[in-house]
């Protein structure tokens, strides 16, 4: 009984059956088509990013290494040691020990300042909650993602490290890139 496909049946074209002249033509022709494909890919060039020399640009909102900020005019630290970041941190990686500002020893603009401010980067999950929790925008997430180190103890970033300008900045993506 012949098979009569209905209107809405899509018949898949399968080419000639293997064997015979059609099969030989198909095998040879498909081989040539494959050769053409690989050669065209070779001509197209590479998509590799040569990582240590070239870096993938990140988006402006990329959450990388944290940074602490100072006021640009007075040079005082923005952080007042309120520990809200530590409270918000789901990975519990921030440790803040606050101390009183005195007129002789003024570190921050508020009443208190952070005497110890440490972020344990081996625990941080880069969620950005600290940035959201901070009432003075003292801590923000930077763009740097090259954070590996040889010792675990080196991954505990102190206040001085977080306040300093990072040496190497990850490239930012241009608008619309």
């Amino acid at each position: 009984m012949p098979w009569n496909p209905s209107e809405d049946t899509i018949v898949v074209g399968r080419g000639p059956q293997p064997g015979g002249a059609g099969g030989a033509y198909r095998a040879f022709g498909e081989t040539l088509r494959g050769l053409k494909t690989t050669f065209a890919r070779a001509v197209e060039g590479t998509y590799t990013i040569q990582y240590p020399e070239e870096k993938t640009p990140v988006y402006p909102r990329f959450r990388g290494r944290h940074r602490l900020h100072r006021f640009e005019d007075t040079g005082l630290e923005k952080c007042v040691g309120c520990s809200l970041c530590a409270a918000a941190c789901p990975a519990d990686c921030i440790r803040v020990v606050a101390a009183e500002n005195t007129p002789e020893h003024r570190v921050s603009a508020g009443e208190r300042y952070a005497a110890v401010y440490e972020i344990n980067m081996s625990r941080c999950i880069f969620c950005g909650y600290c940035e959201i929790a901070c009432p003075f925008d003292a801590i923000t997430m930077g763009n740097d993602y090259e954070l590996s180190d040889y010792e675990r103890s080196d991954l505990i970033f102190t206040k001085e490290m977080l306040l300093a300008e990072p040496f190497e900045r990850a490239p930012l993506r241009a608008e619309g890139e």
Partner: protein
Amino acid sequence: MSLPLAEVGYWEPWWIQVLKGIVIFVVGLSLVPVILMAERKILGRMQHRFGPNRVGPYGYAQPVADILKLLGKETFRPRTSVGWLFRLAPIISIMTAVAAFAIIPFGDTVDIFGTKVGLYGVDVSIGPLYLFAFGAVAFYGIMLGGWASGSKYSFLGSMRAAAQLISYEVSQGLALIGVVMTAGTLSLTEIVDAQSGMWYFIPQIVGFIVFLTASFAETNRPPFDLVEADAELVGGYNTEYGGGGFASYYFSEYLNVLVVSGVVTTVFFGGWLLPFGIDPPTWVDPFVVLAKMSFFAFFFIWVRATLPRLRYDQLMSFGWKVLLPLATLNALITAIVVVAVD
């Protein structure tokens, strides 16, 4: 009465023979790292990658680093292996590859400092037979290597090697018969000279395609690399080899690619001859041969990047049902035409 086994086209003094032996060895073994590098670079490009580019300028010192690494490794063998065969097999492999390289003519006899020197290892009257003889011995290297390893994967690989050799060497030989009949000689230099009118790949196009296809099987290159078949056999015959033994196998594989490219160049693409009556000075001849050889070496790499490995039954049915009848028909028709033209 003693008949000579083969006549040699041109005899040089013994010291030139020795020098030529050294030159062939040096040229052959220094071309291998080049093709190794070319393969990895070209395969990379065909997959949108760079290939190795860390060692040396643009990564071109990579094969040297690889070989040094392999030679620096511990020599070991499995407890189940047959010691002396296990050591002998890679030596057979590389020895036959170099020996086969000796008959590829890079040019006719030239005058070098007043001495006539042939730019080939030896010009025998049995050129293709010499080649097939060494091709057959080369498979002993693979067979013994796989068998003496005392490992199942290696054994499977060498069994496949045996079957593949028998299937494809027949077609390869028959494909060459057309050329031999047309040229009326077995000497490779005379075959090249006979192509001054027209390269043999035009009248012998079927023979050329069959020979080239069978060569892929002879050199264990993809799509006929069932002998190695990394995915199924963990490397086949060389599974148990490491260090120097593996390096020898690796070298001989690529040297075989060069030999086959050289033979295709010599037999079907007019050796050192150039088309359209261009007749450069004789010192250009080796470079013409090298250029043609590198095209075929590129073709081998190109096909490796394109075609997937055949299944074992496909390999067998392709060899016996397609290539062998084609080669036989080609030889038959060539014979009829040659007799009719005479």
